[in-house]
């Protein structure tokens, strides 16, 4: 509690203008018929996620070019609130032009980020985050259908929350991606545990194989261990041979730098690594939207250098080519 919490904010006031605009005028709403797909000789994928009874349901249509695996067009329909409609609309937009494998990497965090008006102001209040998770789940389902993973395979997903049909994988993913620390946060993001509450902890009216409290504890512990392993690499970095240094740098770039740049449509490539007595010079080349971006030579460059310094060695200097 504090001054700003005394007069509870209206939920709708916390939506960004972009959320509001897309709710009013979704650009990709509608459906794609088999006839359209046949006429264009493209493959039609239709994926459903969620259910009316849970308060949110979304259907995603993809037209995929089977030669290149590229999503040529995407449309959606939704039973859901404004946030769900806006997220689905943006999700469909982000799919277009990507390959199926690239599309699967789109997360609810990306969607929320793209819906922001200002970089540091959330597009939607936390209790509405679960609506954007739906958009993320339906992409995974569409990709599974495209790749011909048996639909029964999908049903074999370990379901943690039966009411909201949230899988173990989804719960683990949202904990990791969003750095969640409490069961309440998991519920806000996924709706798991919001209905009958049996899956929250033992003692509910139904016995469960998995409980959110356990998944949270185990996932946090795994994240901790991975963090430690990273720290070990950190200590060992100066001793690594040059090729391994290059690989270590590429790994950090892939995991932490590339996602940052891709939000704005940019990318980079690690071209070379040179060792000097006092410094390790990392040569990078920008591509995509980073080219010609004012920040790529200053703020962004400093951010990349800081990440590499923190993760690997304070001796690292990043230089653009």
């Amino acid at each position, binding site marked *: 509690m504090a001054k700003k919490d005394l007069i509870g904010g209206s939920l709708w006031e916390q939506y960004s203008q972009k959320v509001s605009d897309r709710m009013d005028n979704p650009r990709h709403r509608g459906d794609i018929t088999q006839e359209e797909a046949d006429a264009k000789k493209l493959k039609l994928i239709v994926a459903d996620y969620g259910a009316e009874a849970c*308060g949110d349901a979304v259907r995603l249509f993809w037209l995929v070019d089977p030669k290149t695996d590229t999503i040529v067009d995407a449309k959606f329909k939704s039973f859901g609130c404004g946030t769900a409609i806006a997220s689905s609309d943006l999700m469909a937009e982000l799919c277009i032009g990507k390959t199926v494998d690239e599309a699967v990497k789109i997360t609810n965090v990306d969607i929320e980020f793209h819906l922001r008006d200002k970089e540091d102001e959330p597009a939607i209040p936390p209790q509405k985050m679960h609506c954007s998770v739906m958009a993320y789940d339906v992409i995974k389902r569409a990709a599974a259908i495209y790749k011909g993973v048996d639909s029964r395979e999908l049903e074999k997903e370990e379901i943690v929350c039966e009411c909201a049909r949230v899988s173990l994988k989804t719960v683990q993913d949202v904990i990791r991606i969003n750095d969640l620390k409490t069961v309440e946060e998991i519920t806000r993001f996924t709706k798991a545990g919001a209905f009958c509450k049996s899956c929250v902890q033992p003692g509910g009216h139904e016995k469960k194989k998995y409980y959110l409290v356990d998944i949270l504890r185990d996932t946090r512990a795994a994240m901790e261990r991975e963090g430690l392993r990273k720290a070990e690499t950190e200590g060992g970095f100066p001793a690594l041979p040059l090729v391994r240094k290059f690989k270590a740098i590429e790994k950090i770039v892939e995991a932490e730098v590339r996602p940052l740049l891709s939000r704005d449509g940019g990318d980079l490539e690690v071209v070379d690594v040179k060792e000097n007595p006092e410094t390790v010079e990392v040569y990078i080349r920008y591509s995509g939207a980073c080219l010609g971006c004012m920040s790529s030579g200053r703020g962004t460059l400093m951010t990349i250098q800081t990440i590499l310094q923190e993760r690997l060695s304070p001796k690292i200097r990043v230089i653009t080519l």
Partner: protein
Amino acid sequence: MERIYLDNNATTLVDPKVKEAMDPFLTQLYGNPNSLHTFGTEIHPYLRIAVDRLYEGINASDEDDILVNGCGSEGNNNVLKGVYFDIIRNSPKKRIITTQVEHPAVSHTCRFLESVGAEVISLPVNDRGIVDLETLKANLDPDKTALVSIMTANNETGLIFPIQELAEYTKEQGVLFHTDAVQAIGKIPVDVQRIPVDFLTFSAHKFHGPKGVGGLYIRKGVKLTPLLHGGEQMGGRRAGTLDVAGLVAMGMAMELAVNALEYEEKEVRRLRDKFESVVLSLPDTLVIGKGQPRTPNTTLASFRGIEGEALIWDLNHHGVAASTGSACASESLEPNPTFLAIGIDKELSHTGVRFSLSRFTTEEEIDKASEILVHTVERLRSISSTYTQSSR
């Protein structure tokens, strides 16, 4: 853009006559009624008139008490916590019987009292959406029960509960009875001589008075530990300097509301029914409690294939204010218990939208809102992933 307010169960416009009545007590007659000098004493005649209006409004006898307080939530808290201190804490009667559809001012307070030793039984509503006498009889053990608390009319559905027979039975069993009548005053007649309640709660802003002032009726001779201790205001039953302007306003609002009951019953009901006929002319829609005794101003409707918040969002953009109890908009993700109880598909439990009129709602507004509703439902169904028009 012209705006149309159809959310009068949330709050109402202050009647201009009410504002006129209260204004002098903010600027000229601003004394503390407890003062000995004339600034204080000159207010007393006005307070007496206001109090008379409250007593007449619910037909209380002069021996009864009506405490003037801050809101409906305060009245409900006062009853529940007072009974906790008077009975539950120091007798074998640990039980409060209430319902699954009470306002949070009752249900959350009961949950709190559970944490300090009270037993709470929340009665379900039947397939008509109300709590019936049989259910109460089956659950009321007079040796273990301190209080029965059941609302007069439901805020979401407008369904009127059979409060007369529920109260009569409870009193026969020698148990205290409270009703939250916040949604009833100004919509249906409320008469404490006819209905043997011990406690009754109301709130001025639900019947065209200002926010921040409410009332708690306590029958003659019934004990109730105060919620606020301090000065001797309200005969020691509720401390705190009297909200003079608020009391004057609530008195005026009560009188106007009671005088308008006939208009409410005929004209507001006619407009509400007209609106409902538009709702029902659309395919795959429902009006909850249609044909049951309901407050004449309230419609809880369901539009298959449209999530409630999405609908009120669109309506709001066209200037129509309505509300939803559905999962997405409120903190609770639970489906509406009334929906489930009356046997409506689980699929529809997130589609509820409430429209509530008042005596200030005009026919033009209803026609305009109907037109907007039809377009909005059409648009959202065209986006909906789950809606395909049924052949029913």
